[in-house]
């Protein structure tokens, strides 16, 4: 029951609950890569919390030995934010799917990002709603036939990378479930990053998405050029916007250092003269007539 002292291997981070994903689901690759990143970083299971929304991908926390929360559809980021702000000592990592993050949860992303909230957000993007059995997701292509779009989806997809860059994310990367080594590296760096880090991981759903298959990605995934300047926002945006041409850039797009929300809140506490044993009578006395 004491904190582990011998270094844990990736598999040691696995909980006793076996993943419930379909055979061949891209999320297995993500899980393995993340566990390796945890081992790399010697993550302490007691000081780490994995928070997720609802979806196949959002089952992630159950399969890991850390603390965690499996919240409501779309609410992963604000719940994770509350936890992190109340407990800045913890490593808080958010997980979810494309629908969870960019459809019902899409209203939280801009704010959590612009505030540079000290979270890592790992999104498993399969361009479909897996758990509800195959409806159009916000990253589904225009024209895609799904159970709710029998005549093809009328909607242009969202671009998670470009959105997060525009929102002011300070770490933005993209990986692909079939390239676990890259995913592992990007996740490791994302966790090490101070502030908001976003890792979008293409993670196909062989059960319900017959368009964006592993096969289909073979020629689309392109490593980000070595000479890309990861501090150049415009260059990063240009790469992100390549999605329009059907390309899937993989690697680190952008990383900069700026004060985080935790930093800013600490400044406020300082300005207010914050202390753990502030005398409440000082406040009460101000209300005397």
């Amino acid at each position, binding site marked *: 029951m004491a904190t582990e002292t011998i270094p844990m291997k990736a598999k040691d981070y696995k909980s006793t609950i076996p993943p419930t994903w379909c055979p061949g689901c891209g999320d297995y690759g993500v899980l393995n890569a993340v566990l390796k990143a945890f081992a790399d970083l010697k993550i302490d299971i007691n000081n780490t919390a994995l928070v997720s929304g609802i979806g196949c991908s959002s089952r992630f926390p159950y399969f890991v030995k850390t603390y965690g929360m499996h919240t409501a559809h779309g609410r992963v980021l604000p719940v994770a934010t509350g936890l992190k702000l109340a407990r800045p000592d*913890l490593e808080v990592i958010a997980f979810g799917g494309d629908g969870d993050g960019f459809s019902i949860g899409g209203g939280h992303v801009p704010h959590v990002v612009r505030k540079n909230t000290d979270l890592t957000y790992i999104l498993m993007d399969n361009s479909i709603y897996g758990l509800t059995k195959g409806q159009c997701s916000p990253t589904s292509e225009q024209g895609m036939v799904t159970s709710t779009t029998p005549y093809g989806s009328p909607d242009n997809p969202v671009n998670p990378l470009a959105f997060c860059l525009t929102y002011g994310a300070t770490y933005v990367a993209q990986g692909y479930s079939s390239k676990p080594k890259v995913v592992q590296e990007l996740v490791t760096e994302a966790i090490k990053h101070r502030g908001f880090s976003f890792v979008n991981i293409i993670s196909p759903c062989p059960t319900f998405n017959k368009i964006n298959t592993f096969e289909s990605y073979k020629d689309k995934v392109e490593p980000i050029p070595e000479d890309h300047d990861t501090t150049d926002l415009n260059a990063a945006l240009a790469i992100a916007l390549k999605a329009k041409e059907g390309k899937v850039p993989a690697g680190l797009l952008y990383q900069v250092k700026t004060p985080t929300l935790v930093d800013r809140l600490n400044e406020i506490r300082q300005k207010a003269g914050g202390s753990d044993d502030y005398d409440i009578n000082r406040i009460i006395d101000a209300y005397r007539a």
Partner: protein
Amino acid sequence: MAGANDLIIRIGGEGGEGIISAGDMIAQAAVRSGLEILTFKTFPAEIRGGYAMYQIRFSHEKILSEGSGFDVMCCFNQEALDVNGKSFTDGTVLIYDYPGGDIAEEQDIPGVYCYAVPMSKIAKEDLGTYRSKNMVALGAISELFSISMDSLRATIESKFGKKGADVVEINFKALDAGKNHIRENIDKKDPFKMDPGKPQEDVIVISGNEAVGLGALLAKCRFFSAYPITPATEIANFLSRHIPKFNGTLVQAEDEIASLANVIGASYGGAKSMTATSGPGVSLMQELIGMATMMEVPVVIADVQRGGPSTGLPTKHEQSDLFLAAHGCHGDGSKVVISPEGVEDCIYLTVEAFNVAEKYQVPVLLLSDGSLGFRTSSIKKPDPSKINIVERDKYDPASGDGGYKRYKLTESGVSPMSAPGQPGGNYISTGLEHAESSAPNYTPENHVAMLDKRFHKLDNIEDFFPATEFDEEEGATVGVIAWGSTIGTAREAVKIARAEGSKVAALYPKLVWPVPKKALERFSSKYEKILIPEINKQGQLAKIIASETDIKPISYTIYGGLPFTPRMIADKIKEVI
């Protein structure tokens, strides 16, 4: 109308004319001079361009409600006269801005003492600034009813001192101008007068909303996230100033859903956490309130109720969120609803809301309302050392009973809760139905066991939080049950009815959900008729009591956006007897 040593003054006019700050100042001054006060305000839902009113009740004794009607009406404009004119009775005092103001005609109302004070004119012509109109009115009022001028000056000094001596001076001049106008031109005939009382050391003047914030701090709330909304925003305003002093955290979230999500995350992390909103926010929070129920995460949600449904009457008063609070959330959700009766309760019941949330690991809704939120009252200064604080039942890593079971089926129904950082306490807090371990589990047996657990743990809440007050009366046939800010009014109504010869008993529950069955049954067994006055259309508490007990209450509802007067309830008591 107030009784002896009891005076109600109203100031009415256009929003933005300084009515609120004038009211605040005279209230403060009265308290400085040893009086008790209780204020009542109505605002337009627009920033400009509507009728605003500030009422102050003064007394030498503890004040329980806004009172019935008013004794003195000070009208800044014609609209204030129109709105309030119909409530004038024999002996009302009218002070009005004439000549030179918005009121075009001299007033001569039979039975009403009419004092014309050219406030606008004095302000503009004599003082050179229209903005001092409210101070002219204050000077006139304090002179007329003997509100201590020294106290008023002291209040002004402490309020404007920082802005410079000249600002203080201008205000003093305006006060004097108002006072002198009365001395020189008005022949006071009315009988109203407030003798100063004995100034008290341990009194504070605070609003209901600020009191909730103070209660939260006293309960050691260290995380607060909210989204602005009338009439709840002042809770956030208060805490934004003070919570960082305790190294706590305040977040203005992007919406109410995010704010409750923040609070749930923070509470999972071990922090005492709270949000504050009004009806529209509570509607938006329904899904996450259910999640807190399922996760068994303690959270406190203050709902400063306003007129509904929908955007409704944002600045008005209603007690109409009880159905939603008690019966909201899809599925069978166990939660607790507590409602304070006055400003002092706002402090102490907020502390209790945290205690109940932590004790039972449930969401607790604290139902205040617009009138109470904006009301200021003189109350006894709270003594932080006397506050009783309950902590959640924490997981003890040394308990050594093998694998930690977050949702262990214990006898009480409450399971020890670990917090991140505790070795061996790892688990996944979840909104899915789960086994004791927290792993998802959808078997019928498990769902039954867990639903039972989540309801069972509240079985004894009435003993833990016995905040139901009995006011029995031998021989009475009618028992009044009131909740929330109607309690104060009911207390006065009962006094009035008794003074007028009626026999009547009363019950004042502060725990409104789950309903305090034992208290209700004990009470109802003694009185033939149970009368429940409340401010909503459907008679929400009456209906809930009817469904949870054998009581068949007589529901007495009003729903015009205003509180009851004691007179109304007293009359109803007599009618029912």
